[in-house]
């Protein structure tokens, strides 16, 4: 037990990887065994994450379950892990979504072993980002997540997968380039990559310092601005913030269902997490300075994302654009907080951040659910064209019910999770960015419009004759997969305190 | 005012150079060979003028009697090769003219740098016979010229053997000639 306590994060982090290696030992033809092993293995980190959740002490400041080991001494980087109230929900979300994604991938027939192994590898990558307390390690995991995703889209995606995966890869790598350079610069200037040390040093770095011998003639402020934007762009691409979002619809549309789930559910959060973990603490001044611009982008993402979503005829694309829309709220919250932190409006800022973090979690649930459901219908109809679907409610009533429930959560219906987080964001941002917030509420209306459009096109209207003979109903495995998501949506909707408590403690400490 | 010896010298020099010139310009090889003999004889005259009578004798014996005659023999042997009407100079003979003139010019220029060239001949301390004896002794003295003397004989022998080998019609070459 002591071992478990001491190395909990490492165990969570690497158990999927170990599972992936284990999978490779199973003969490739034994599909069923591979699937089961993958599922069981993915439950291990989930179990551990639950343990983590309950063992985590919300009231305690700072990072918990910290581990540190030698990794790359030569450049001052170490294997340094730890979690706080922002990362714990993310860890939980990740470990929860992965088994579900695996479960939904039962229908994959092609090269199952590699598929499952990549999924588990992906999980390790994502978890690593949420746990790292070392910039270099952060970057390592940041990039590691990229490759399995690329191959998942590239290999198991649909028609236009090569284009989509390539676009995804190049966008993200180009984005991380700036991140890489900025990290290097920070590392050089600080002589260490340890996040805790850097957070103290870097943010207080001022003009009087000689910048640690960097041969840069630019003013320190300019340098920090450049580094700030390098970070912002990298994360913005990942989130994605308008106008860096164009990779996302393609990637989502072409990815396999489980891939989309993870992509929307977790990967997008990496960017937002980066904002919270790195940008705000490291660049408070710059963040404040540019917060207005960021807020504007967020509003544009919300409004334009919603409009774009509305305009889609492809069900999956519709859901994909909704991610842009929803993540806009996260960014709005962050922008508001960035502007307000340390001022009189700090309380509003805390509120907004709380909302943003919760929105990350919630969007993870609802987007994953939506993609799952899109996948279900695509599985049966082999089309995602809204105009070819329709009137499915009578044919597949259970499916219809679940879809409506999930869509409502996504829409922000009070009583479900989306409402709570969006309300918090809006409430927190209102005093800070009143105009933006107002505009984004207009966006909310359009959100309602496109969600309802989707529901209407799929479930109602005249039944397309084609589907008559088909078995359109959702099956048991899929229900099992979505049930936990629905449970959590409802839970947070009615009783958000259990999770907000955890988030709030940390946010208060960090931004209060 | 020229002394007698000087006149002798100049006349001999004129003849020698003329003969030498004819050697290198004459179209007929036979003529050239004869002019060569004339040149060699001219040089022998200078040897005499230089109190080296023995060398003059050797010049006549070795050069005129042996070498020049050999050359004439070979000229006769090979007379079918190049007739008088054939071109005797190669295409770049003008370059040879330039080269030779340049050489002569620079040699003379070189000599102007040497003051001792104006020297008069010192009187000889020995008579001709004594000198000859001295020469003979020097050639067999282990502390003087015995090695060159011996080597020269080896060289002559080797050259002789070699010349015979080369000049003698080989068995194979004869066979081939018969075939062709």
């Amino acid at each position: 037990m002591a071992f478990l306590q001491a190395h909990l994060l490492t165990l969570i982090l690497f158990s999927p990887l170990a599972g992936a290696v284990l999978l490779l030992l199973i003969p490739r033809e034994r599909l069923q065994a591979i699937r089961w092993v993958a599922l069981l293995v993915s439950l291990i980190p989930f179990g551990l994450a639950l343990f983590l959740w309950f063992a985590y002490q919300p009231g305690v400041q700072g990072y918990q379950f910290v581990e540190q080991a030698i990794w790359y001494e030569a450049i001052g980087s170490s294997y340094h892990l730890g979690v706080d109230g922002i990362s714990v929900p993310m860890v939980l979300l990740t470990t929860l979504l992965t088994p579900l994604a695996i479960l939904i991938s039962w229908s994959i027939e092609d090269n199952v072993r590699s598929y499952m192994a990549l999924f588990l590898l992906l999980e390790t990558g994502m978890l690593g980002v949420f746990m790292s307390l070392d910039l270099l390690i952060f970057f390592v995991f940041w990039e590691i997540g990229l490759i399995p995703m690329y191959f998942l889209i590239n290999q198991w995606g649909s028609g236009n997968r090569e284009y989509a995966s390539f676009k995804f890869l190049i966008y993200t790598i180009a984005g991380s380039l700036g991140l890489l350079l900025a990290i290097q610069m920070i590392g050089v200037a600080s002589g260490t990559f340890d996040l805790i040390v850097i957070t103290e040093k870097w943010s207080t770095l001022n003009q009087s310092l000689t910048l640690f011998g960097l041969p840069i003639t630019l003013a320190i402020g300019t340098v920090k601005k450049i580094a700030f934007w390098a970070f912002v762009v990298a994360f913005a691409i990942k989130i994605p913030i308008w106008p860096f979002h164009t990779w996302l619809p393609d990637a989502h549309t072409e990815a396999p269902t489980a891939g989309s789930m993870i992509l929307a559910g977790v990967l997008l959060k990496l960017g937002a997490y980066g904002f919270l973990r790195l940008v705000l603490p490291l660049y408070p001044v710059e963040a404040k300075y540019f917060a207005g611009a960021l807020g504007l982008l967020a509003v544009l993402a919300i409004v334009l994302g919603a409009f774009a979503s509305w305009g889609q005829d492809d069900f999956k694309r519709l859901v994909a654009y909704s991610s842009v829309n929803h993540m806009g709220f996260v960014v709005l919250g962050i922008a508001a907080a960035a502007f307000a932190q340390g001022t009189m409006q700090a309380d509003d800022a805390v509120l907004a951040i709380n909302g943003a973090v919760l929105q990350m979690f919630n969007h993870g649930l609802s987007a994953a659910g939506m993609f799952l459901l899109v996948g279900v219908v695509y599985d049966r109809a082999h089309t995602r064209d809204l105009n070819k679907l329709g009137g499915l409610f009578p044919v597949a009533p259970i499916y219809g019910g679940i879809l409506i429930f999930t869509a409502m959560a996504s829409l922000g219906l009070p009583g479900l999770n989306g409402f709570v987080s969006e309300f918090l964001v809006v409430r927190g941002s209102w005093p800070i960015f009143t105009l933006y917030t107002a505009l984004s509420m207009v966006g909310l209306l359009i959100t309602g419009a496109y969600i309802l459009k989707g529901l209407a096109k799929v479930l109602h209207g005249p039944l397309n004759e084609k589907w008559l003979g088909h078995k359109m109903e959702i099956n048991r495995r899929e229900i099992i997969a979505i049930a936990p998501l629905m449970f959590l949506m409802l839970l947070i909707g009615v009783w958000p305190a259990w999770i907000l408590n955890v988030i709030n403690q940390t946010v208060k400490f960090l931004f209060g | 005012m020229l002394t007698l010896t000087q006149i002798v010298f100049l006349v001999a020099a004129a003849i020698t150079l003329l003969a030498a010139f004819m050697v290198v310009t004459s179209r007929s090889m036979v003529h050239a060979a004869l002019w060569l003999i004339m040149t060699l004889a001219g040089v022998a005259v200078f040897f005499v003028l230089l109190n080296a009578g023995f060398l003059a004798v050797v010049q006549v014996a070795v050069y005129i009697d042996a070498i020049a005659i050999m050359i004439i023999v070979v000229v006769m042997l090979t007379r079918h090769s190049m007739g008088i009407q054939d071109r005797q100079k190669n295409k770049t003979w003008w370059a040879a003219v330039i080269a030779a003139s340049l050489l002569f010019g620079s040699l003379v220029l070189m000599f102007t740098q040497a003051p001792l060239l104006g020297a008069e001949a010192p009187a000889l301390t020995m008579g001709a016979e004594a000198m000859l004896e001295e020469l003979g002794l020097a050639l067999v003295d282990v502390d003087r010229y015995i090695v060159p003397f011996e080597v020269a004989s080896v060289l002559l022998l080797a050259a002789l053997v070699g010349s015979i080998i080369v000049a003698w019609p080989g068995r194979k070459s004869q066979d081939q000639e018969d075939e062709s």
Partner: protein
Amino acid sequence: MSIASFEPSTLLIVLPEILLLLLAGIILVVGLTSQRSGGLLLSWLTALGLTGILIVTLLFGRPGENEVLIFGGMLRHDWMAFSFKVLFLFVAAMTALLSADVEGVEDRGEYYALLVVATLGMSLMASSADMIMLFLAIETTSIPLYILAGFKKGDDKSTEAGLKYFLFGALTSAVMLYGFSLLYGFSGDTNIYRLSEAMHAGAVSPWLIGGMAVLVLVGFSFKISAVPFHFWAPDVYEGAPTPITAFISTASKAAGFAVLLRFMLAVFPAIEAEWVTLVAIMATVTMTVGNLLALPQTNIKRLLAYSSIAHAGYAMIGLVALSSFGTASVIFYLIGYVVTNIAAFAVVILFARSVGSDEIVDYAGLSRRSPGLALVLLVALLSLGGMPPLAGFVAKFYVFAAAVESGWIWLAFVGVLNAIIGLYYYMTVLKVVYLYRSEDEDKPIAIPRSYALVLVICVIAILAIGTLSAPWLDWSINSALSLF
């Protein structure tokens, strides 16, 4: 430098020369009495005889602490002479072995006897300390070689080679001799070690000395086939019986260098800077011309001829350095070059013996036909190209080192750039050998014992000089020091 007067023990010093003379006589007699097929016997007799003399030289010919002038100053007994003698004897023995059944050579007794006489001439060239002796020694070397080059009377190319070699040799030696006569005239002495004293005294104008130096250099350049007195080399190399080509390209060239080193260093210190510059220019031109003209060659013997011209250029770099190390590097270079070139020619001889061609294109498929022979050729050509761990690399290294030491950086660069051109055409040959296929690949090339012996000795020597160069270098430095 004083001249030691004769003692009976002095004879021991020239014992090798005396034995060479004896050997030549024995060979002549044996050659006359033996049958026409006595080639093999004579070959071994000559080789063993030369080896015996080599051993005698090593045992008794070692110079003492100080250099001595003997026989009235005709000869100088020093390390320089000793080293070169050993080298010549070695090459001659190898040549004798390689000549075992060279085609088109009749009168084998005379052939070997002339070979021995030429060797005698060379060993005298290396030790001559008097212009009279030197001239005689050069001619004693050259005249038998003229004959040997034209020895295949039934072969048009051979006779042509003989005549060309002769005409060039006689002309250049006449020019050199004229220079000698002037040297004698303006110093009053024929001993080259006393010449320099006269030159030093300042009695003679530098212009005059320079002129004489140029005249003398003409003759030496012919012997080492330096540009512009190299014209004979390709034709003679191609036409002469191949073992003789090997002999001319190695021993004769080395002898030329022995004379060049001794003479230039001893006689012309007064105009050091000038003649060194001249030699530097000649070295540059020689290397470059040799290498560039080697590029288009299609006949392996001509290729090696041009390469040997180029190698003379490299070796001259060491002379330009004008230091004891530079001189040592020349000697070392020659040692390395000689064993390497013999190996190369041995392969050429063996190949021509079986295939009857010297054209490079015919070497296609050699590596499959006779991998061992191909490997020897590889080793030899790479050594010529200056690749370690072979003799050629170290040799070039020392030469360039000497140039750099003396500040002749540009010359060193010219040298290395030329080495690259050289490598290029050696590789072109190797490409044919290793890359191209031919229809005769299944017909191996016979390697008789005497040839095999030469190949083995040379390859071992190439490797030994290349890897363990210290003793050879010590030897070279000792030799060089005896000139300073």
